[in-house]
């Protein structure tokens, strides 16, 4: 049987991207294989690890548990879109660099997207809240301490960058 294909248009990191894909194409594979945005990683493909987390209309979702066809017409933000508009590292990315919040980096894209959305909701988390915020993402390397520190540092950086300049 030849698989039916669907035209899918998704605004990825603010740019309308189009591709023709079979219904079973996962959003994660659409981003990686069809659009070449390999920042989004696939670990478990059943919703547990969080590496594939992207923002759908601003809210974190697992891109391994969604079909690209279902995302048609929506906005998606990936780790590539978590930078500053001018291209510099975004506050969460910068904080991971400063705090040594990654080692192999496999889990990092899911953490960056999750934390980016979280800080919009809670710009000044406590350490305990920071821990809770990353509870749905697994990391096999860091032991999490530096990631918790990165959440707090990212909140600081974001506040500094958003403060009106004198």
């Amino acid at each position, binding site marked *: *049987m030849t*698989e*039916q294909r*669907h035209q899918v248009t998704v605004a990825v990191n603010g740019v309308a991207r189009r591709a023709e894909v*079979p*219904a*079973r194409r*996962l959003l994660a*594979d659409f981003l990686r294989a069809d659009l070449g945005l390999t920042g989004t990683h696939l670990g478990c*493909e*059943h*919703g547990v690890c*969080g590496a594939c*987390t992207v923002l*759908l209309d601003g*809210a*974190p*979702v*697992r891109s*391994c*548990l*969604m*079909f690209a*066809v*279902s995302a*048609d017409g929506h906005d998606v933000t990936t780790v590539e879109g978590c930078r500053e508009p001018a291209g510099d590292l975004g506050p969460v990315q910068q904080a991971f660099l400063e705090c040594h919040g990654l080692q192999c980096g496999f889990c990092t894209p899911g953490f960056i997207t*999750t934390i980016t959305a979280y800080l919009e909701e809670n710009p000044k988390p406590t350490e305990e809240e920071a821990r*809770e915020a990353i*509870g*749905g993402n697994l990391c096999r390397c860091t032991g999490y301490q530096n990631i918790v520190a990165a959440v707090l540092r990212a909140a600081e950086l974001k506040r500094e960058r958003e403060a009106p300049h004198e």
Partner: protein
Amino acid sequence: MKPPPVVYHGPDTLEEAVRLMAEHGAEAKVLAGGQSLVPLLNMRLTAPARLVDVNRLDDLAYVHSDRHGVRVGALARHADLEHATHAFETIPLLRQAVRTVAHPTIRNRGTTVGSLVHADPCGEMPAVLALLDGEVVLRSERDGERTVPARDFFVGPMESACREDEIAVEAFFPRPAGRTGSDWRELSRRNGDYALCGVGTLVRVDDAGAVSAAKAAYIAMGPVPQVVDLTAAAADGDWSAAADHAAEQLDPEDDIHASAEYRRQLARVLTARSLRAAYEAVAP
């Protein structure tokens, strides 16, 4: 792994979705939040020929509350229910329980009605529906609309009364009568994981503070949510005696996560704490 080939339908109206299920129900699955169905597809544990994606039925993305209770449409995400202040004020148990369903990221996508149809014996919301004596509204071309009470809706593990040509359109959670306190608690190995044992309780008191009704519902303790009436056992406020009585009614199984005996012990401890908390929420 990757999901098997499938024919996709993305209806824009409920009527169209119902018609598609009438035509293809035997070989089709409704795709709601996908937080249970897509893992099964990715692991190739299921391979429906067609998917009927209900994510464009925006009219079903509601959470409505009134003095009778809370109505949750098929496209309301767990997160919508969690964040609806009016739903929390009407039935605090809804937020108490839905916050323990997975992680926020899963709740952003997974639907409450989808988790009822999925009928996982470890799922929180089926037990909440059973504890509150709620119901599910189903729609098909053949039978039109029918309403199934919770006690008939959960048929077995991963098996609900939703027939293959039916779409669940709404769940109704009735508000408990009188002065009733509630509590939800569970134990899981990691925050956000499926619970080894979970319990929800309702305790009703009269104006003098005496217990006039009490019951508990359990997850992970049997093939379907288990509801135990504890009115007599909790009448004198001896929570641990009531918890012992509840644990005797339960028949959990061993699995790789916990032994039956350990689960029963958890039920005992959690029930006593939960009854006390529910009581203290409304005691004079």
